[in-house]
């Protein structure tokens, strides 16, 4: 199998430099320092062609940042991005441009991600014309074809985004991403803003398009039900680090074969389920700590029911615990 995308030790840090007042204050002995957020911390991930990888985590865990690094919206601070077996940093400008067209992103907010002053025809059709994939003359036909593919009436192509419902706008966002004939789609919470019945329609569209265009997805979501349904493999992130990777079926399996990392276990236990009645909710303690000042050792140890002395000091490595099954937890050394 060939990797379509490889991330090698990707880190992304955002730092806020001290302003003038802060610099003065620190000269005078104040404790003010540059603030650095470790949004993504040493993440390695291979994605096969045609695969759907679900990326799960709570808000602030760095999943969106990682998605943006994959697309190239944010340059990584450290690490390498390989596309079809080649390092992106060493590509020529023309190659890079081609690669960037092949990796497209679908955004969470179907309201904010469409230009309110553009007609749908231009939102979808602008990029393929600019990049020479379509002749300006053929734009209307091309857009009409795409709109039909995503289940929109092509007669609406002269309308503006505000004239569409949330579900229709999500479809416009998908059509825009598809317009440049991508191989790889990063979907950042693409269905989170939609109602249940509309969400099902859009998820079905993703499944159909995957077959039709042989697409590879990185599907970022906090909704485990959606991820479970759609993805082949699931990556769980906590506070910038990957804590567990596994095939969807294995990860969601019951009993000991299922989730390995205590965080994954807690996450799965908290998901509200339709078949559970009058559940006695048991709360996982604490909140996700600030990425400005993450806990030492294993990031999860302040909330972990199994935390040991070692967890406070030593960061657990992401190790293969079963074929194609990775987990970062010290407990695995003791089994």
């Amino acid at each position: 199998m060939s990797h379509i995308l490889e991330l090698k030790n990707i880190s992304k840090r955002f730092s806020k430099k001290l302003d003038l007042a802060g610099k003065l204050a620190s000269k005078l002995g104040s404790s003010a320092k540059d603030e650095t957020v470790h949004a993504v911390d040493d993440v390695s991930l291979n994605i096969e062609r045609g695969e759907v990888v679900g990326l799960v985590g709570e808000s602030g865990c760095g999943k969106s940042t990682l998605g943006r690094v994959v697309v190239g919206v944010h340059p990584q601070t450290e690490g390498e991005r390989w596309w079809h077996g080649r390092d992106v940093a060493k590509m020529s400008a023309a190659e890079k441009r081609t690669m960037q067209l092949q990796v497209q992103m679908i955004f969470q907010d179907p309201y904010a991600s469409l230009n309110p002053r553009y007609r749908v025809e231009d939102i979808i059709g602008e990029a393929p014309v600019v990049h020479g994939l379509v002749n300006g003359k053929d734009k209307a036909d091309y857009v009409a074809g795409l709109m039909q593919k995503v289940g929109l009436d092509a007669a609406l192509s002269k309308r503006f985004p505000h004239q569409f419902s949330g579900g229709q706008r999500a479809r416009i966002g998908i059509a825009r991403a598809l317009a440049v004939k991508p191989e790889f789609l990063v979907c950042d919470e693409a269905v989170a803003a939609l109602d249940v019945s509309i969400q099902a329609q859009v998820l079905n569209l993703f499944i159909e398009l995957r077959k039709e265009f042989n697409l590879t997805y990185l599907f970022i979501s906090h909704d485990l039900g959606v991820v479970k349904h759609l993805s082949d493999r699931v990556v769980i992130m906590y506070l910038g680090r990957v804590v567990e990777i596994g095939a969807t079926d294995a990860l969601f399996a019951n009993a000991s074969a299922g989730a390995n990392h205590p965080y994954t276990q807690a996450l799965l236990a908290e998901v509200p389920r339709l078949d559970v009645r009058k559940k006695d909710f048991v709360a996982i303690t604490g909140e996700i700590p600030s990425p400005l000042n993450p806990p030492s050792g294993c990031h999860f140890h302040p909330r972990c029911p199994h935390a040991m002395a070692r967890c406070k000091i030593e960061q657990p490595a992401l190790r293969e615990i079963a074929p194609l099954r990775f987990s970062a937890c010290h407990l695995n050394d003791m089994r």
Partner: protein
Amino acid sequence: MSAVLQVENLRTHFFTKAGVVKAVDDVSFSVSRGKILGLVGESGSGKSMTGYSIMGLIDAPGKIVDGKILLNGENIIDLKPQQWRGLRGNRVAMIFQDPMMTLNPVLRIDTQMIEAIQAHEKISKADARERCRAALARVGIASPDERLNAYPHQFSGGMRQRVAIATALLNKPDVIIADEPTTALDVTIQGQILFEMQKLCRESGTALIWITHDLSVVAGLADDVAVMYAGKVVEYGSVTNVLDAPLHPYTQGLLESVPSRNIKGQPLKQIPGMTPSLLKIGAGCAFRDRCKYRTPDCEGAPQLKLQSQHRQVRCFHPVAA
């Protein structure tokens, strides 16, 4: 058990320039002490407006045009604004989706909470503060003494929602209306809040109306559920009955479209079309254009009918279980 809150044939309409929007149109349900009712619907189904109507928070161009809201047997619909103020935050309290909007950003938590008590009761500031402290401790906030002196921006989203819940609890209301209080929160934090709410209802006997679009939250939390569509309750009954054997085609479609109910990787079952504009439904069943069981009967208006004991559905041809 007698109902603490009983809503009968409530209609809240908005008289806009474009026409009359029937946001809440013939909604009935009741909640007893210590029980939890899930009010489920998609955006625009009128579930929040039902909550606002019970709180007396409907502003022009909206108006409650018909129906009764009985709080401990007393109809509160025609109360004067002054009487409403005595009720709100005292006998009925509301928790909103966005806790940042509920809390005043420039006032400390203690100021806001003490005010909520003193508005309804003659009580010394020290006593009120002690009650606030106890309320914060009850919803699981660590070191409540120090946290009382904090400003809302010093709390995380989950903590802010806890403060909002504690504030709603201060005057031991008979009914709490919670409008999507966990939608903006992470799964593990949502679990914590659900845990607290469940415990509080059991302990204090407060009746809770939980407004949400998430059927799976209702499944684990509520006793009864009312499913709303286009301003009307289309199905009402116990959680077990409604979720295990839905009678209304909409409830059925909604349950079938949940990913966990479908075979992995296969297309999800979906409800075709989208929610109709409330301006354009006219007479007849609002769901008829999306319904696979549609018959000519559906052009008439279906009524909420008792199917079996404690089980109501608004449909001409309910789906057999």
